[in-house]
């Protein structure tokens, strides 16, 4: 497809549609995880002493958990959209940004500590994703 148009001449919005979709997918998936965690933090306070099944039932009726699962599902749809546009060997590793966003969300919203080694990992993943983007020049689908 690219060769027919001549790579460089492609219109930018079209050629970046997959990247936009995968980034949105990562943002939705991470946001979903963080909402689920917020719901669980709240639900945990009242679930002490319950059996496993009682606890699960309790978690799945928490509005934040339900909202989180719904947003996570939207993220999955966006992932399908992204995967329909470019190579899976290119797009799939980009979803490692999930770990970055969930970590940042954890420290931002839940005051979870991020050790220095963890920050180095975050920067390394971001660097890897930038490298991955540069390997996309010969993308066709």
């Amino acid at each position, binding site marked *: 497809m690219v060769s027919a148009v001549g790579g460089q001449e492609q219109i930018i919005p079209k050629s970046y549609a997959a990247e936009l979709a995968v980034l949105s997918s990562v943002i939705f998936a991470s946001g979903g995880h963080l909402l689920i965690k917020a719901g669980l933090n709240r639900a945990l306070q009242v679930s002490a002493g319950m059996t496993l099944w009682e606890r699960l039932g309790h978690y799945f009726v928490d509005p934040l958990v339900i909202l989180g699962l719904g947003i996570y599902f939207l993220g999955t749809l966006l992932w*399908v959209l992204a995967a329909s546009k470019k190579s899976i060997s290119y797009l*799939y590793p980009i979803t490692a940004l999930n*770990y970055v966003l969930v970590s940042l969300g954890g420290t931002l919203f839940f005051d979870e500590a991020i050790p220095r080694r963890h920050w180095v*990992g975050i920067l390394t*993943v971001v660097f*890897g*994703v930038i490298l*991955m983007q540069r390997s996309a020049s010969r993308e066709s689908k």
Partner: protein
Amino acid sequence: MSSTVALWTSIFLGGVAQILLKRGLNERVAQASKSSLHWWLSLLTSVWIWAWGISFVVATALWLLAVSQMNISYAFPLLSASYALVALLSRIFLKEPVDWRRWGAITVICVGVVLIAGR
């Protein structure tokens, strides 16, 4: 099932799931349809897409089974093995071009995931 078997089966199946998804999508992109709603609905008639969905659910269940019995800081970095697996399988079964730059980027991302999750 031992937790180690559950963990590696989950990682392998999770990678295979992405290949199944892409295989199904490649088919549906080829027969590009008129409206986008039609396209989304057409995915529901693809055996590959169903295989992806089932693999995804089984992989997630196995993952929960594994991490309930082992340290998450040990299990989590191993997930990044699926990036290399997906690249390898996509090259073999989908004929995707995976050059040295892409392998390099995958390696860097795996190192980053290990650093984030490891102890």
